[in-house]
């Protein structure tokens, strides 16, 4: 019994170690030659560019619902003028990074785990190794780089579109005053708020790529291994995003 427990603990610790080493390796090989920018560009296209529309759409509706709810709540206190500030701060500090990261996880992260998982299952990753190509450098590093670059950009897009959505509903539809909407944002939102949002996006970019690549790369060699890797990648990424978000917020606030 004790022996089983001990073996289990050792197993978990070893797995955690492998997980950490995986990221360290990916970051190390990002800096080490040979450099293959075209690999990173290809990933940027599939993680970043192809998520543009989806992230913009979700940003728009999130901003619109914020405009609606924000107006209804604020009008009870007669402070409709604060609508712009509320919408912008909530988006930039919180919802932008988190929702953009969740959307990219659902769209690109799952696809990535499935792709790497099936490459593992059909020995394509072994084939790379035997050709003297480091599979982590070839497959994982470009994805991590693409995550680092694209998450902040997508988050910025989400924020901007979201604020316009909040404006359209709050001011255009519900009739909140137009002037204070933007003046409030200008006065109350500082570089600190924007920095927090970007910092979160950066961290989420690394976490999502790390988890999704790790799960796919270490998939068991069967069809259920690939499907399980995909599920675990999405679930673990989502959980880590929300948990990290809380801690980052409490530290950075």
């Amino acid at each position, binding site marked *: 019994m004790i022996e089983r427990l001990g073996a289990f603990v050792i197993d978990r610790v070893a797995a955690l170690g492998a997980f950490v080493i995986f990221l360290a390796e990916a970051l190390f090989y990002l800096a080490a030659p040979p450099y293959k920018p075209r690999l990173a560009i290809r990933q940027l296209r599939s993680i970043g560019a192809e998520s543009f529309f989806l992230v913009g759409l979700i940003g728009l509706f999130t901003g619109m619902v914020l405009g609606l709810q924000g107006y209804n709540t604020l009008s009870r206190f007669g402070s409709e003028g604060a609508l712009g500030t509320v919408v912008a701060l909530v988006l930039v500090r919180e919802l932008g990074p988190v929702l953009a990261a969740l959307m990219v996880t659902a769209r690109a992260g799952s696809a990535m785990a499935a792709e790497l998982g099936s490459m593992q299952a*059909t020995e394509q990753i072994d084939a790379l190794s*035997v050709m*003297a190509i480091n599979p982590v450098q070839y497959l994982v590093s470009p994805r991590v780089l693409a995550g680092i670059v694209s998450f902040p950009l997508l988050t910025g897009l989400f924020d901007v579109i979201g604020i316009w959505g909040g404006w359209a509903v709050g001011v255009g539809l519900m009739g909140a005053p137009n002037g204070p909407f933007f003046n409030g944002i200008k006065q109350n939102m500082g570089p600190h708020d924007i920095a927090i949002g970007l910092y979160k996006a950066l961290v989420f970019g690394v976490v999502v790529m790390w988890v999704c690549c790790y799960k796919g790369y270490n998939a068991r060699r069967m069809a259920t291994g690939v499907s399980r890797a995909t599920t675990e990648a999405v679930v673990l990424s989502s959980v880590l995003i929300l948990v990290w978000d809380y801690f980052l917020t409490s530290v950075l606030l």
Partner: protein
Amino acid sequence: MATTNQNAGAPGAIISVRELRRRFGRQQVLNGVNLDCPTGQITTIVGPSGCGKTVLLKHLNLLLRPDSGTIVIDGVDVTALGGRLQNDVREKFGMLFQAGALFDSMTVFDNVAFPLVELTRMGKPEIADRVGEVLAAVGLKGMERKFPSEMSGGMQKRAALARALIRRPKILMLDEPTTGLDPTRTHQIHELVRGTQRQFGLTAVMVSHDVPAVFEFSDRIAFMHQGRMALNGTVAEVRAANNENFELFLAGRASGIDEPLAAAAR
């Protein structure tokens, strides 16, 4: 480069395996394998399905690590090699996986060109020439634009062979190159490996179930039985050896695989 250190293995053998052991869980798959593959010759490993031929090959190309024993390749003890040094050894390999392991998101052309594109400074026209040449040699001319999923199993295998050959490796490792091919294609593939071996002096290690053809085509044969090499020698030596298990294997009654089947049939 001086290769006469204590790690040099048997003289004249580019691959030397000593007392290799490896277990998976409770199953002792390799149980003291000894094998020498002389430079410039074709060594074929035969043995019943599931006896560990693929596992042995994956130890030779450093995908798996042994529990004990040594592997010396081209004068270098690779048993515990890692990182850059490991890649230096692997640059000498061409490997055909049993299931092909083609990149399924790339066309046949891109698959075969891949090692040249990623690992050499060769220009586009030169690469196209080389790929065309090798694809013609394996009988896949005109298939350049197809994806692996659009081809038959035998065609995939030949495309994978083309990819293994494209860099003119010093050591060619083939895991069942002819399984699933018709007799004419089998003969063609054997001729191709033989021809490349003559032209470039490569060493080939092959796993094959094509037993009659193997005698024609190989220089040496190693018979794997219960985790070790029960027989290992030139074709003539192996023919003359009168090993009981080998005779049974040739007659299609290898001990070790029939028992569970027979038990299931009862």
